[in-house]
């Protein structure tokens, strides 16, 4: 199998323990330029918030099959954008939905929401992004 993306050596960590692969995002910004990076980040960070809120609703409703699909998708997407903690939490939620621990998803979803907010703040601050867009 081809090697999946690896976590870069350079990471940023918030006091709350949220890990972000800065090297990956920095490398991408250098290659595509600031304007395209801003456009990409706007799209991803906005989408991330919508997805996490939707997942929270699915968790409260006990709709574990669609929640597992959303978590699976978020794992791949957030990880590819370098949001390591969000990706890891999404993978845990997917596994919990598939197993007997569906009731464990609510605290995991709360942790995901917290990690998402911290990750968005960290990306916005580190890259000096215009958060109003």
């Amino acid at each position, binding site marked *: *199998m*081809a*090697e*999946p*993306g*690896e976590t*870069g050596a350079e990471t940023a960590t918030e006091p709350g323990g949220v890990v972000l692969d800065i090297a*990956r995002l920095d*490398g*991408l910004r250098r*290659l*595509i330029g600031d304007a*395209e990076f801003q456009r*990409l980040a706007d*799209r*991803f960070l906005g*989408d*991330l918030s919508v997805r996490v809120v939707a997942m929270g609703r699915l968790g409260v409703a006990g709709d574990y099959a669609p929640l597992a*699909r959303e978590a*699976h*998708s978020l*794992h*791949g*997407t*957030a*990880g*590819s*954008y370098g949001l390591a903690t969000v*990706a890891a939490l999404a*993978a845990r939620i997917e596994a919990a939905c598939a197993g007997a621990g569906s009731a464990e998803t609510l605290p995991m979803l709360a942790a995901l929401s917290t990690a998402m907010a911290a990750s968005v703040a960290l990306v916005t601050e580190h890259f000096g992004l215009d958060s109003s867009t």
Partner: protein
Amino acid sequence: MSPSEPTLSLSRLLYVDDDPTLTLLTRISLERVGGFTVKTCASGPEALAEVEAFAPDLILLDVMMPGLDGPGTLRALRKIPALDSVPVVFMTAMVTGDEVARYRELGAVDVIGKPYDPVKLPDLVRAIWRRCRG
């Protein structure tokens, strides 16, 4: 040259994934970083409708999609004579040994694990191309 004849160089990539945010990142990676010509499709049926006109050198295919999933799309692609030699690579977070073996049995030349590094993805795709065309 007809689409069914294997090309020596890798230029045209078809990327199929239902996640628009990941598709945007992947398109930027493959086009801007890798220099490829990329067509993206959001579903298996859309890919099947577009693939012959686009004539890709290689297809990158998400596994878990609503409706027609990646394996189902691959099976349908293989029924199109003009595309029977076009390599297909699955892209998935489900990459245990058993799953990778199953994807290969289905006809995928390789599997790229999600998440992936968008800076490194083009080189990964080229390496797979060299292996399957070597």
